[in-house]
């Protein structure tokens, strides 16, 4: 099954290194090599957004990036969203607004929403809906997710 590459990257602010096969996706490495199982697999072909992570500031599907491509990069996953035990305003809003049901898609939505708010701290509803269209949820009808993101944007603006 081929030689393994040695990769060094920053994951959620920590320097990490890992071995991976050239064919392995970032998703597979996060889940099966680094045991960062917060990032979920919904389709493994870039259509559902459950594995959304932020690499060097860019939102992407971890299933569609090879792990070897992350050499030297900075990767943000759901495990890094809360800081020192304090939930990110997005997480608090999802929690308070019942912005999840089964929760499998939730980490992807949170990372996607974070990437949005990093770029545009005060999006309108249409912009939120447009941005989140790359993430599929089958439980909620998106309404409470959209409200949660709007609420978190308000909270961040007040801070």
């Amino acid at each position, binding site marked *: *099954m081929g030689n393994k590459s040695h990769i060094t990257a920053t994951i959620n602010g920590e320097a990490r290194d890992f071995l991976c096969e050239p064919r392995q996706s970032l998703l597979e490495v996060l889940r099966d090599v680094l045991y*960062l*199982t*917060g*990032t*979920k*697999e*919904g*389709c*493994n*072909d870039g*259509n*559902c957004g*459950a594995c959304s992570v932020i690499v060097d500031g860019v939102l992407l599907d971890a299933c569609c990036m090879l792990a070897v491509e992350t050499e030297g990069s900075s990767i943000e*996953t*759901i*495990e890094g*969203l*809360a800081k020192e035990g304090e*939930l990110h305003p997005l*997480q608090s809003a*999802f*929690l*308070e*607004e*019942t912005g*999840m*049901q*089964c*929760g*499998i*898609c*939730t*980490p992807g939505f*949170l990372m996607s929403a974070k990437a949005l708010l990093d770029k545009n701290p005060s999006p309108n*509803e249409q912009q*939120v*809906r*447009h941005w*989140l*269209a*790359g*993430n*599929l*949820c*089958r*439980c*909620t*009808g*998106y*309404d*409470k*997710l*959209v409200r949660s993101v709007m609420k978190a944007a308000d909270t961040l603006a007040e801070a």
Partner: protein
Amino acid sequence: MTQLNVVGKSVVRPDAYDKVTGGKHYPVNYSLPGMLHGKLLRSPYPHAKIVAIDTSEAEKLPGVKAVITHADVPQNVFTPVYFVPAHAKSMVQDFVVMSDRVRWAGQPVAAVAATSADVAEAALQLIDVEYEELQPVFDPEEAMKEGAPQLHDNAPNNIAKAPSFSFGDLEAGFAEADHIFEGVYQTQRVHTCYMEPRVCVVDSETDGRITVHSSMQHGFGLREKMAVALGIPESKVNVVKPTYIGGGFGGKLDVGHIEPVAALLSLETGRPVRIEHTRGEDFIATTRNPIKVYLKTGVKNDGAYTARYIKSILDAGAHATHGAEVIMVHGLYGTFFPWKCPNQTWEGFSVYTNNIIGGGYRGYGAPQGCFAVESQNDEICEKLGLDPIEFRSGNTHKEGDPHPVLQGHTLNSYRLDDCLKKGAERIGFDRRAPANSSEGAKKRGIGFACHPLWVSGCLGFPDIYEHSGATVKLNRDGTADVVSSCIDLGSGQITMLTQVVAEELGLASEAVRVVYADTDTAPFDAPTHASRATYSAGLATKAAAVETRNRLFKAASAVMEANPGDLYLEDGKVLVKGAPDSGVPITEITARAESAFVQMTEEGPRLTTIEEKGTIIGSASQAPPSNPSPVAAQFVEVEVDTDTGEVKVLHVVHAADAGRVFHPKAAEGQVEGGFQQGMGYALMEHLQFDQDTGACLSSDFLDYKIPTSMEMPPKIESIFVESNEPTGPYGAKSMSELCLIIPAAAIANAVYNAIGVRVTELPITPERVLRALGKL
């Protein structure tokens, strides 16, 4: 209604913190040391006999630990559906885990366990299968004809099951009618699209016992079907309840191939084996059965029904499984008994084809029925110029009526008229213009539909398990643990159970935890399905909490030297009636109950009483007393682009009588998520197959479109017409399936109002709209 402290409030979901920080406790995250990975080899042919299988090359691949084929699988024939016995008389037994006869493209024919999923995948390519192809048949009406290819020996004309009901005099009813309406309504194959794949880890012991972890909706059903499939006693199988699963919607209500196959591979290798579906495998693992409904209705000039004849043809796919039950529910609760018609006949046919096997899906036969009946009701009102709300009201049941299906039961709570009235007011139904009257290429329309009879569980259905159980234990730190086999699919069952226990024990909801359960240690519970969890599991858990409270009062009575009947709970304390200063904290009673008989104190030994000793624990296992009907009406405003054929939903109002609402935000979430699935069903979702090869053509989310946040309407309003269901926990009954049963009919009626042409086949795609408008 009595004053409640926790029930009825939108408390924070106990699972929310884990879920917003990267959800640990899903079956897909489960793994064990030394675990092998399994993969299934699937038939490329829809109908074939296996002549020979050669696995020798696969077995030689380094890392491969076991390869099995149908020759290694017990040929036990059973019904894989969790909620009925494996050999239920009302069902059809035609399923084996692996067979030498292939009946659908994608049927597993061999399996590999290897040290990694990649090795297992590579090994599949080395298995050589020789097939003898047989003629397939994909259309159920073709399959019913003489001379069609036969799928199962004991099912002439491929009819798996053909139930019918009749009452009154159909001929006289039609003779009495002033008008007769006839139509044919076709629904399509859709997938539940749970976001967590079907996945399992099965481990085995040297004595043959197996332990199963799986993303599924019923632990006890899985235990039973595993035992039957493998030919071992039930007590040899322990199924661990998943803390929660990543969605089910009915799509995880039957034993798939993966759990028994993983068990066989584990027994052979002595190692745990994990099998996870790819999304493509999930798309062919379960589906809502397509149903073609022929509907003929006679009405008087004033809109009163005189007669109705319904023929429903359900495409069961390769095995009957759920198709034998979906047809019944579709008949009873989807078309026949919701409406009051004096002369009715329904004939149902569940028909084998070489399509994929049908499964459960939220609504279970009713969306297909609601679409047909409510589309035709709309036609009747339009043609005869009747008030569509009065028409529904006049042809449905009333509060206090006898339950139309369950003898001896009454529709105690039934507020359909309120739902219709309030929903109409909220959307502004009186502003609805005549059909096709808006100017320009983009035309607006308003429509609605309702569903006048549904279930809170399965009480009364032949062979279907219904009872629930729970154990509730008080801890010394003032918290309570709940053991329940009721699985949380995402819709909030854990939250509901904590609310029930907190309410009964006077605790804050955060002080109650739903803890570990498995089939070895926890009481039986029927599946989380059929809108039953709040009603049935809620009632059983309430009964267990009452037992616990009684036990607490017994211990407290010894401590407080009071009669147990004179005690009550408030703010975490036990008090004597009439003496508000008498309170002793629950923690103190519980601590004394768990303490030694003689306690050493600063002052020396202190004797406590024998009577106050023993864990404060209660349990219950019981069937629910009834099966109350929730009802709902849904109003929808759409815009149809007559140039492109695109339908856009602008505004939704869902008015429901769900009895007492436990958790308003979660209840709204059911409405919103149900509408999303219903809108997908109405407008875009269609699991498509090559009509020559039977191969799935829409096996990813690129080709199988579900609504995203962009397509969803910006405004989905929920109105809860709260009633008090006297048999339910705190007045509650069910609500969730209706949220998906109604949308397709409501949207179809709104589309008609917009463009003046009716589409009677789902999904209402741009192509079908343009065809209906004569533009294609």
